[in-house]
């Protein structure tokens, strides 16, 4: 029963962190400091996505992954609002490792599911690990490009310097490598089938086909 207890705690912590994000929205509204409100609202929505998936599609993401999603968003929004990006040296890099590992984990879930459900695709474990690292790095590059584009268009300063963005990318690679190693290790003692089953993707797929059919019937 120890596992269940940990799960309950993770859930509680996630809720607490979401409350923190709500607090950021309120504090922003009261103090008239609107910079972080859009990010906080967006993060709140994203952190609710797993529950929405669960309710509407019966798709269950691993609880640890849920927690990781909320944690990454919390570190970005709440600490960002409290000025950690300016005050704590290397905060930027901590959030980068977190978000990169999150991207890698979601990529892992995605690619294992593809491996299981698409018959013409077969991805052995070493390739899976390689894929995750490349996926995370590619995402990191796109991320830096978006930051750069944002800076150019709106005059914000998301990128401080060359070394800053390069070290960001180094940490992206670091986060991706950790998840790739952990994921490959995880699959040595859980078969991809069991992992995918635990996500209840079959239920989700049934739901989606039903929804699509209903749509078709209506039009």
């Amino acid at each position: 029963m120890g596992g269940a207890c940990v799960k309950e705690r993770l859930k509680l912590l996630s809720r607490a962190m979401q409350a923190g994000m709500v607090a950021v929205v309120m504090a922003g509204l009261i103090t008239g400091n609107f910079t972080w409100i859009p990010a906080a609202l967006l993060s709140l929505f994203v952190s609710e996505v797993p529950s929405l998936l669960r309710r509407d599609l019966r798709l269950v993401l691993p609880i640890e992954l849920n927690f990781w999603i909320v944690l990454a968003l919390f570190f970005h929004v709440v600490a960002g609002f409290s000025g950690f990006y300016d005050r704590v040296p290397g905060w930027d890099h901590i959030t980068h490792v977190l978000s990169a590992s999150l991207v890698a984990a979601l990529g892992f879930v995605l690619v294992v599911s593809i491996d299981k459900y698409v018959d013409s695709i077969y991805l052995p474990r070493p390739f899976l690990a390689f894929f995750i690292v490349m996926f995370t790095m590619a995402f990191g590059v796109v991320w830096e490009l978006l930051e750069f584009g944002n800076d150019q268009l709106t005059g914000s300063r998301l990128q401080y310097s060359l070394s800053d963005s390069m070290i960001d990318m180094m940490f992206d690679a670091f986060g991706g490598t950790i998840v790739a190693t952990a994921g490959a290790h995880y699959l040595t003692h859980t078969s991809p089938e069991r992992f995918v089953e635990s996500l209840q993707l079959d239920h989700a797929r049934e739901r989606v086909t039903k929804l699509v059919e209903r749509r078709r019937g209506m039009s």
Partner: protein
Amino acid sequence: MEAERHMGRSIASVTRDQILEAELSWISSLVLFYSTVYLVLRLDVLWVVFGIVALSLYVLPIVTSRDPFRALPWEMTIVLSLPILLHVSEGSRALRETAVWWDDLTSLAFAFSTSTIGFLLTIELRMFTSVRMNRPFAIFFVIMFTLAISGFWQVGEYVGDVVFGTQSQATNGAVMGIMLWSLVGGIAMGIVYDVYLKSMSAKRMKALGLVSLWEEPV
């Protein structure tokens, strides 16, 4: 049939076109080879790694099939060896100072060539390992591979600059420009290779040993 594949073809069965194609491909690969040797002498680590990877992917099908006509299509070999040639040629340095678009061109050429390596990976993984991809996945892989390599490349240059005091990177903007070109080049080549494989004649595909590599498993 099986024995024939392993032994290679007798020279009589090879057409003039095939000889010409293989020659073009081998000559282009020599450019890659000599550039790599030159860069080894200059201790240009990143480019040496690039050259060795490209050469291995070039040689692998030839060695395993023991058939010199299983060389990559010559147009692909040219795309593969172009950026390394631009990199080693002294001309590019002079041009860089006169033509403002020169850096963009070399970045784009580099993106083309990394996406070619990604494309070759999808093909040779299919040939030599149990990895199976379908068409959309392979295109996604090519684009993702190009982006990721450009990221690792820039990090590598950055580390090199810090450790060895070289100056391969200019400003943040310049580096972002290179990565932007790799995004553009990666997407473009993902589409190009999709169309390329679809439109390649069955005869030529068979001659090159690329049969059904990107297709659904038979």
